[in-house]
């Protein structure tokens, strides 16, 4: 996965329209795998790579789940730009995800 997404993100901080997305997964569960695949293709199609995907495996790092109060997985948090948004599920409903990420209609 992406190395040190925080610092990479910091470097691009001033870059307008850059997205930091944190995906909470549980091991290699089918829902988690599907969510990651869905998120990658969504980034490619709708953000032209203007995004950083940070993945957290709650099975390996439960403290991270505690910090963000992640009780169900997969769960996606839009960390930046603000306001923060949380989307639950394997992200299979693209129009719904795009709307939640405030991407529907504008970008292509």
């Amino acid at each position, binding site marked *: 996965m992406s190395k040190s997404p925080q610092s990479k993100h910091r470097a691009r901080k001033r870059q307008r329209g850059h997205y930091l997305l944190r995906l909470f997964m549980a091991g290699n569960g089918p829902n988690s795998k599907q969510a990651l695949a*869905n998120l990658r293709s969504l980034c490619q199609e709708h953000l032209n790579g203007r995004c950083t995907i940070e993945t957290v495996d709650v099975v390996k790092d439960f403290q991270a789940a505690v910090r963000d109060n992640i009780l*169900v997985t997969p769960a996606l948090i839009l960390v930046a730009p603000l306001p923060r948004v949380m989307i639950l599920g394997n992200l299979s409903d693209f129009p719904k995800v795009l709307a939640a990420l405030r991407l529907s209609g504008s970008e292509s």
Partner: protein
Amino acid sequence: MHVKRRAIPKVPTQIAGLDQILEGGFPRGRTTLVCGGPGSGKTVLGLEFLCRGAMKGEPGVFVTFEERTEAIRMNARSMGWNLAALEKAGKIAIIEARMPGEEVRSGDFDIQGMLAIVGGHAKRIGAKRIVMDALDVLLRIYDDLKRERNELFRLHDWLTDRGLTSVLSVKTHRDDDHVSQYEFLDFMADCVIRLDHRVVGQVATRRLRVIKYRGSGFGTNEYPYVFGERGIVLFPLTTAELTHQPLGSKVSTGLKGLDLMLDGGFRRASCILISGNSGAGKTTLVSTFAQAACRRGERVLSLNFEESKEALISGMLSPGIDLRPSIRAGKLLVQTAMPESIGSDGHLGRTIQALDSFKPDHLILDAISACLRMGSEQAAFDFMMRLISVVKERGITSILTNQVNSEKGGDEELSGIGFSSVVDAVVQLRFIETDQEVNRQIFIVKSRGSAHSNRRQSYIITDRGIEFPDKPQPPPVRAKKAGRKDGRK
């Protein structure tokens, strides 16, 4: 066909009375479901199970889906458990699992996140027990019954894989539709307990019932319970009859004359009823007994439902009985209460706590007729039956007074409360007022496992207590051997 049951391993809950009902405790490494309406005490039961385990060296995790951590800590504090200290010592972990509310949902998800958090904490403290409080809130994240069921089975497997002794609580509502929604929960769990909170005769009563217990026997009745000062107190009754202590040796009544009539006195661990009309001297008689017992160094718990402690003490000074030295010496504990104040379960809880802490040799209850004011005849009966049962189990002598209205006295009015089967001895006092004089008579109606006088004996109450002008007569014929073996007449 008779198949011998192999005992399954159990974890004692140490909740007063519950282990007796569950024949040992919750199933070890398995799931127990506790369901009940709001205010029935599901959270307290779970907390008590964890706290008692933690104090005994079995750490536990408490997952709350509804209440805030601070509310849980306060709840525990009101029962006298210091959760914060147990948390600090790594004996208990509280996880506040606030389920997502308005978040966007897209596609399928599961509760792996929560399991990771719970698993992480459980590993950290080496948990053996886990309580998930208000699991129904967790299930509400799915609008799909089938999905709920799958997640619950996943949770169940997860808990079982880790060998955790689990208590899951679920809120149920009165209407049956809602309950049947969680029917599969009953099926999944190895032990199912239902808590019921209802109001009868304006008095709140709580009842516990075990619905099922896979691989184990259990008490099948509805058991009343209260929230005591140190957690839940249950009152199992069914098996009590079998564990009663046999009637013990003789104990002096404090009156030589009455001892003579009773062939030496009352029997220890028996239940004695002193019945009589107003003014007959019932309280004087039991106070005489109390004073004599305390002077011998025995301990007496006196429950008074009719007058205050001060009124009792000053009232007894006129027949020359000073209870104050006994109280000061810590041998006599007088507990007074208005019968209508806290309901029969409340009274029972309070009395059992006094029995636990004071450990008396004898119990005096003045008067059972006032118990009717606890709400209903049924409430009074429950209170008396359970109390007598508890004291008999512990080998405590109980002396009850009963006020009857008829001049004749007697126990005919007792049938109203109807527990004569547990009463071992009945002493009748009569107070007859004529134009010329007052006349008092004492008569032993029955005395199980003991010979007794068959005469009505006159007595007077002077400033030196109860006195017999004529020398009382001993029993006519010596009994062969203290009654039949089972103590029944």
